[in-house]
């Protein structure tokens, strides 16, 4: 009796105009439905409909590109959470982190997973590059996608690098100081680099100054790191990831034997 009623309600709901406007395919195990699941879904349509069996093997792909992409999404979500609790000013930034540790519910775990996730993404993106090299998956017709991948590798490092400063503690500030001091040694464009002095470069107009918004790591550097970390670089990364995955799909999953 009840079962019959359930069936009736189910049929009524799934045949309603609202349901049909949202879910366009039947969820049964026919080949047609499975193909439509990929083609007709925004989130899945970056996949090809089918792929060769060996491209699925973990010992072939190590799943490193997929993990890197997932970590990017994971870090975006946890990063947005963190932004609710953070002010990018030198008077407040450090104490906001302390608040995360001691007064925000689950704040400490939130910060921990964001940091470990960020480090993990740097690792997985490098291992992904090594895998793509070792399987020769950059060879024609995939040359340009390798270029985009190198761009994503550099952006991943920069994402992590700009995030380092945001805690405004000794560890972050001095890591950024050491890192950006190298920029001061850029040939021609840095005041400590070859020919920099001859071209009129000083600590107040060279490429390091442009990165920091000042001649030392201070309030402007913190704001710049914040904007690069939370908005500018993620935008570039999102764009490049889109092109990267689209090209993978167009060129076929690696392993054209």
């Amino acid at each position, binding site marked *: 009796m009840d079962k019959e009623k359930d069936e009736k309600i189910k049929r009524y709901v799934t045949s309603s105009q609202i349901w049909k406007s949202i879910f366009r395919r039947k969820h049964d195990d026919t*080949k047609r439905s499975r193909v439509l*699941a*990929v083609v007709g879904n925004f989130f*899945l349509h970056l*996949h090809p409909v*089918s*792929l*060769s*069996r060996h491209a*699925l093997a973990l*010992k072939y792909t*190590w799943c490193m590109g*997929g*993990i890197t992409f*997932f970590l990017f999404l*994971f870090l975006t979500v946890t990063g947005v959470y963190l932004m609710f609790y953070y002010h990018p000013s030198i008077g407040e930034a*450090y104490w906001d982190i302390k608040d995360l540790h001691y007064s925000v519910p689950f704040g400490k*775990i939130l910060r*921990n*997973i964001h*940091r*470990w*996730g960020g*480090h*993990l993404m740097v*690792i997985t993106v490098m*291992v992904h590059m*090594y*895998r793509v090299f*070792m*399987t*020769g*998956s950059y060879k024609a017709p995939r*040359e340009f996608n*390798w270029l985009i991948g*190198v761009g994503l590798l550099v952006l991943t*490092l920069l994402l*992590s690098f700009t995030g380092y400063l945001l805690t*405004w*503690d*000794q*560890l972050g*500030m*001095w*890591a950024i*100081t*050491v*890192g950006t*001091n*190298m920029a001061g*040694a850029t*040939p021609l464009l840095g005041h*400590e*680099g*070859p*020919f920099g002095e001859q071209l009129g470069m000083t600590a107040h107009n060279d490429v390091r100054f442009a990165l920091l918004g000042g001649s*030392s790591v201070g309030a402007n550097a913190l704001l710049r790191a914040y904007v690069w970390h939370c908005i500018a670089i993620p935008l570039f990364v999102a764009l490049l990831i889109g092109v990267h995955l689209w090209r993978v799909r167009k060129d076929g999953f690696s*392993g*054209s*034997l």
Partner: protein
Amino acid sequence: MSNIIHILFLKDNEVIALFGIAVFFFAVVAFREAIKNDRLQKQGKWPPEEQSGKDKVLTWPFLVRKEFLVAIFVTAGLLVWGVLRNAPLEEFADPNITPNPSKAPWYFLGLQEMLVYFDPWIAGVLFPLLIIVGLMAIPYIDINPKGSGYYTIRERKFAVSVFSFGFLFLWVILIVVGVFFRGTGWLWYWPWQEWDPHAIVAETNYDFTQFLGIDSRSVSGSITGGSVVTLYYLLGMVIPYVIMKARNSNNLQKLGLIRYITVSFLFWSMIGLPIKMFLRLIFQMKYIWVTPWFNI
């Protein structure tokens, strides 16, 4: 021994340990797969039946299922990691107190380690640029059509060995050295040694031309040093070229002159690092070429 455990869990250092282990684990996997494939190929069982690109499976559910599982495992792993271990947070930033040693983020420590052997404009700017440009150039200078889409060593000996050397040794090992073997004053400490903030090591370094009895800051010293650097690249390019030409090499013909010069320049720039390290560590050599504007 207490020091190694102390360093291991200092700051983000557990991450670098994970990095080193992961990279070499996957390198072993790659080489094992490559050797297996090469053996199959020798026996004429190549490409394997199921890998001939005809055996297709549907993305839904076979790939999507795997992706979701991996996503769940990564999330669970990160949650456990985040519960067990706290992200580092030191004292409030103070520009007046310089920590000793002050280290860059771990993935740049290879470059910081290079500062021992090269001036900042090479270690911090030129080499990173060459690495990025060199990586981007790979698909255009590696014209070997073989080995596309499967692990192999036999068909790509040069490519695989050069890249693996650059990545596994020059990049990863230098990072590990920078993290675990460099202590206060950027001096070398073995993991069982305590870091001594007052330690000073007196080092007398010599420039290359001083070995020849020429003052490296003089004009003739500068010219000699410059000639050595130029000769290094020139001979590095000409000698293999002549040998390959004499053997009527097919590869050389396919490469063409521009590609050959690019490959050669990038290769010898990379090899320049271990050469300079060797000269510095064994002969205490500081600069090969000294000019009023820059030193190499």
